[in-house]
């Protein structure tokens, strides 16, 4: 059921999800079998008088508590591992590392408003606030295999920057700027949605994440607005 995973870290999230789901299904099936067995074995027609004590075999069900503890610890470890690895470290630190290693990265600002996203690009000089900045409405174009730093911000109410395919979600909070990081590894068009109730058209606050091969991205960057305008996604922008 999970949508396709295009990010470099998504497999970790998926792994946590799979482990925990398998675990709870096993514990659940066990509990339900014990329960159904008890309902069947101790029904009044079969067992007219209650036993003076719980059957010893059933007393062992208490062990499920210990199983639960073990499972909890396992879950904590794997979940914390994924969290520490990709989310605890401030994106700034990841960025420093990436700069040191000389990997590709791009900076983008994602600004949420009722009910659209604008994505600000720093332009050729890589700095915000200069004249070659440009912005796109409801369209985020990024190169494949490059580190994307998205500074999530909101101008009015709470939004949430949710990219299901990239296993990435972060709330856009007015007054706070949060930088998140992900690295798309697969080319294609994916959806960005809003996951925090932001008003009447909450369900319609969607944008496109377009992952291009590096070369195509360079071409696009030469004249970004021209191509972007081809998208009818600008409708929402125009309306406001």
């Amino acid at each position, binding site marked *: 059921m999970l949508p396709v995973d295009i990010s470099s870290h998504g497999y970790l999230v998926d792994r946590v999800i799979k482990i925990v789901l398998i675990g709870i299904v096993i514990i659940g099936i066990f509990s339900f079998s014990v329960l159904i067995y008890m309902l069947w074995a*101790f029904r009044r027609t079969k067992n007219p008088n209650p036993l003076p004590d719980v059957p010893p075999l059933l007393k062992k069900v208490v062990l499920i508590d210990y199983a639960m503890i073990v499972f909890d610890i396992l879950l904590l470890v794997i979940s914390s591992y994924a969290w520490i690895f990709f989310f605890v470290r401030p994106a700034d630190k990841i960025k420093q590392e990436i700069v040191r290693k000389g990997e590709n990265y791009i900076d983008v600002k994602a600004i949420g408003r009722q009910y659209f996203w604008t994505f600000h690009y720093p332009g050729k000089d890589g700095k915000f606030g200069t004249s070659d900045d440009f912005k796109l409405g409801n369209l985020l174009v990024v190169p494949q295999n490059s580190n994307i730093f998205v500074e999530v911000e909101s101008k009015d109410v709470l939004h949430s920057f949710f990219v299901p395919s990239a296993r990435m979600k972060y709330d856009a909070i007015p007054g706070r700027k949060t930088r998140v990081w992900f690295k798309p590894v697969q080319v294609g068009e994916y959806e960005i949605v809003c996951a925090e109730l932001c008003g009447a058209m909450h369900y319609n606050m969607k944008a496109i994440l377009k992952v291009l091969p590096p070369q195509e991205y360079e071409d696009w960057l030469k004249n970004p607005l021209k191509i972007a305008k081809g998208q009818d996604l600008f409708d929402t922008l125009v309306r406001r």
Partner: protein
Amino acid sequence: MTEEHAHEQSFISKYVFSKDHKTIGKQYLITGIFMAIFGGVLAGLFRTNLASPGFLTHEQYNALVTYHGAIMFFWVAMPILLGGFGNILIPLMIGARDMAFPTLNMLSYWTFFVSTVVLILSMFVPGGGFSGGWTIYPPLSANPEVFMGSQLGTVLFLLAVALEFASMLMGGVNFITTIFVMRVKGLSFMKLPIFIWMELIASLLFLFSVTPLIAGAIMLLLDILLGTHFFRVEAQKVGDPVLWQHLFWFFGHPEVYVILFPALGILYEVFTTYSRRPVFSYKTVVYSTIVAGVLSFIVWAHHQFVAGINPISAMAFSLTTILISIPFSMQLVVLGLTIAGGSIRFTPAFIFGISAFAMFVIGGLTGLPLGAVAADIYFHDTYFVVAHFHYTVFTIAVLSTISGIYHWFPKMFGRKINETFGKIHAFLTLVFYNGFAFPAFFLGLAGHPRRYYTALELGYLRKYQWVHEFMTISAILLIATQIVFLFVFFYSIFAGKEEKEPNPWKSTTLEWLTPSPPPHLNWGSYVPVVENEPYEYAKNGRDFIPQGRLVEIKKKEV
């Protein structure tokens, strides 16, 4: 009934402004049941919209979602489980003649009633009711200019919630005092029925968790009315929306346990009675409930893992959240093993009880992926959350409640409720409920965010529209079943077969000693004396040993 002549009361003081805890409890119960149907119908309406978008406007959809959540928490689960069962059963189970503060109790109900009226009014003000989600997150709720509903609707909604909190606080003060001070002779704390323990801990949790939120609500109201910016952000003016989330969830998480504990308490009473076995381990239940209650105060930020909280504290909260599953797994094991070795009577109360237990196992287990911080990045605010809390809260607010109603109906009203109907009711409820709640897990896995007017706008969700349709049909059938139950319930109150036997289920706790319905001041010219543990079933070769017996008292002249 010997007291009746001494307390001739007018209709108004007997049934309307009554200070009798049983009448107040019934008032709470019936108001709660009506609100449940109301909230259910709201759910049916917005689910219809999900199946066929365009049925409602966007504002209406959001408002209905908001009111459904708020009603089910504050106007159904709390009044029924605390106000209703708590009021009726606490004095009866501890052998008291009434609550410690009967007048406060009456005020509590009427404040609640006013809050209900204000809430329903707020839905119909011009411009529409509040539609910012039951969590009332600012800035959406605090900025009239960005908010889609009307300011009046928002203020009335907040007022209604505030009145409801005030009412439940009055009730809580009453419960705590009554349980501490008015236990009958011989009823020490470790002999209290588990239901009483649960009500006590729930009241304490509510008292200590809701009060910071009241502080927050005052600030939010100032934001809306005076233009301050505690939670709003304007140029140069730094409010902090996240502060509200903290205050809200500091309340919000214990609140879930406030309604969960009494529901579990009902299940303990029901399981022991119908399986004829004592509680598997009384002390484990008491201590694990206390531990869970204390832990519930330090787990709240798991609702905000991706809401801009410090990632290190997110890990700490993930740890406590996962830890809290341990006392609950202990509870559920004890609860499940209570029926082991028993001789189970499949009455409607037991069927509802056991289905509540089974559903709660699902609800509890699916809490784990949400508590694990890495998985929550994906699941946060998706239908997985919706499914999870319907498996917990629906279980609490509906299945356990109905189980309790079937169990104590003879005691409350002195009449019987049809058993065959009860069994059909249980079966249909279970089927339709799973039909509507279980598919939501899969929608959540597919990444379907909550509170969406329709899924058709998103490419990756369009193919799941049939799931929504299926869920909607199940939900509507579920509500229809409950409406039928409502009719049977009222029919049985007025025209059910009379129950002459004070203890039809052969249960042990004190409330079954007095006639059904209990006379004024509960015990007439008798008083209960406690001699035994609360759950003495299958002991010394006897089927059951009541917790106490009634002894006659010589009444001093006043």
